[in-house]
């Protein structure tokens, strides 16, 4: 795995540019902090000692490699070979831990004592609280009041792990407002605190760095496919997209293959499908906004996809046509969650169910031809969403 993790992949040009997207649109006060993170990450990524420690933790703490599970009954029903990349089986129950452990190790290497994070569904907050506890770093997590209400269990988990959870009452009281507040707070504590960003977005170097920490998903999946599929690589690689970290990591493993890359956004939060180029939270990408340039709220049954922007690499992959971005609506996501649970015995996160919903639809309407092989990243497990699903049933 070490060799695969270190395999280089397209460092963004200039100041973190993916085509016209990316960049570093931050207040002057934060420019030196971003530069410090960039230097530290570039050095760490080139350091075998850093990789050895990360690899060790991913193996003995996170439980990597995660399996590639054949969805046997669904495959038979759909007439395809569906393989599930099981990030739901990682410690803390989602792919977020891959990135957070990498960034927490980086923070410690930089001499920082504290991690700041923002969270929507709570998975990134739980992962950050976990890494902080493991490495002896203080953790402060900003979370919108509405998300705190929706994700009571994860809030409790974060507190159990010793993190401070700060409710954000501004604006829509969701992830975008928590992110703004985390940025404001970072300005005031930049000397001793590290901003641990949860998705492949934000100012350079975060989109690049988060993708590199998450590419373990795609690299593992590709190696696992090579031993299992006659064609070595699948026909389709599918992942849900909010900010897009699990998709960025998954796609990174397959960019140089003929596999069709499909990102599935929430219908009410489709920054690629319904957004326009814009600047939010330090980066230029596709962003949901009104005609006047004001950022609009995303709506999704899944708090993790409730963000009006998308990582700049996804905007670039969409523009260049290397990846295709589609949507799934709340109703089909709930139906897909139930179908996966009944068919395979897996309760996945509502975020991941977006990818499942698209595969179900695409296999049925022929977009995925019969006999195709499909790798789908299950980014997280669904425990956190049970209250939402109980309300609906």
């Amino acid at each position, binding site marked *: 795995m070490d060799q695969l993790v270190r395999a280089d992949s397209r460092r963004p040009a200039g*100041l973190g540019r993916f085509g016209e997207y990316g*960049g*570093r*649109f*931050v*207040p*002057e*006060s*934060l*420019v*030196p*902090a971003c530069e410090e993170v960039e230097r530290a990450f570039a050095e760490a990524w080139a350091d075998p000692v850093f990789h050895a420690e990360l690899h060790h933790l991913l193996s003995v703490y996170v439980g990597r490699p995660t399996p590639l599970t054949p969805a046997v009954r669904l495959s038979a029903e759909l007439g395809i070979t569906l393989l599930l990349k099981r990030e739901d089986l990682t410690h803390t129950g989602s792919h977020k831990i891959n990135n957070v452990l990498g960034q927490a190790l980086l923070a410690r290497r930089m001499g920082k004592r504290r991690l700041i994070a923002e969270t929507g569904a709570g998975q990134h907050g739980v992962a950050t609280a976990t890494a902080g506890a493991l490495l002896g770093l203080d953790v402060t997590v900003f979370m919108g009041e509405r998300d705190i209400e929706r994700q009571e269990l994860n809030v409790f988990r974060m507190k159990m792990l010793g993190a401070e959870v700060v409710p954000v009452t*501004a*604006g829509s009281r969701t992830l*975008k*407002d928590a992110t*703004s507040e985390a*940025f*404001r707070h970072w*300005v*005031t504590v*930049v000397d001793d605190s590290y901003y641990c960003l949860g998705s492949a977005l934000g100012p350079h170097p975060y989109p690049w760095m988060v993708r590199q920490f998450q590419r373990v998903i795609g690299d593992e999946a590709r190696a696992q496919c090579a031993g299992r599929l006659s064609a070595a690589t699948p026909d389709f690689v599918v992942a849900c997209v909010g900010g897009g970290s699990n998709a960025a990591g998954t796609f990174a493993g397959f960019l140089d293959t003929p596999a069709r890359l499909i990102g599935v956004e929430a219908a009410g939060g489709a920054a690629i499908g319904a957004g326009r*180029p*814009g*600047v*939010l*939270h*330090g980066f*230029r990408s596709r*962003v949901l*906004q009104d005609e*006047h*340039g*004001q*950022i609009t709220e995303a709506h999704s049954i899944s708090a993790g996809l409730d963000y009006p922007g998308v990582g700049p690499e996804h905007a670039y992959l969409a523009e260049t046509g290397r990846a295709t971005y589609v949507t799934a609506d709340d109703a089909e996501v709930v139906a897909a969650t139930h179908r996966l649970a009944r068919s395979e015995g897996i309760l996945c996160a509502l975020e991941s169910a977006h990818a499942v919903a698209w595969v179900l639809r695409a296999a049925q309407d022929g977009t995925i031809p019969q006999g195709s092989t499909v790798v789908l990243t299950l980014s997280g497990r669904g425990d956190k969403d049970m209250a939402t699903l109980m309300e609906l049933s």
Partner: protein
Amino acid sequence: MLVPYVTAGATGDWTDLLRAAVDAGADAIEVGLPFSDPTMDGPVIQQASYQALCRGTTVAGVFDEVSRLDLGVPLIAFTYANLVLNRGADAFCSALRDAGMSGLLAPDLPIDEAGPVSAAAERHGVDVVLLASPSTPPARRAEIAKRSQGFVYAVSVMAPTGEQASLRSPGRELVMSLKQHTDLPVVLGFGISGAEQAAAACEYADGVAIGSAVMRRVLAGESPAEIGAMLAGIRRAISLGRA
């Protein structure tokens, strides 16, 4: 220099605040174009922006209102990159100039990203005011001082906009270092809450920008006349300090 900040559209009489500021001796005014996600603003300006957006304030509407004023002091738009790029930098700067405004200040457009906007601004005769921060390293301070237009904005504290109980030493050090690289005025902002602090700041800075202290009073319901009286007090303190 006295440079008050007013969030456009936060109240129905916001243009009266501009007139009151001019009557109180403002040398220039920052006109805040409200943005939904202001990452550099503290709670007061956030609330003012939110209130303005709830009242239906738009960039086009603000430009229209400002174009009908004749205040006799430079008006500088204080806003965020997305509102500039939403129209396109050229169209935005052209409209800004047509409205009679002469400057643009966007805290999330650091020098590394400001190039295209600066070029458009230059084509339309708009000054781009750049910010420097206590965390800005020396070489970068020099570049900011050289590339800024109109004045240089020195951020006094490592914090979002907002009032501070006392002035911090980083502001003084920053101002002094910027002045080594420019003949433009260096204006200190972020954290100035009243006359005493403004006078103290103007012992080393060429002026002060005052935002949250103004908008806190506006949000509390103070009239343009009351805001004008507050600014006049600051003006007097600056002038006496300078005498």
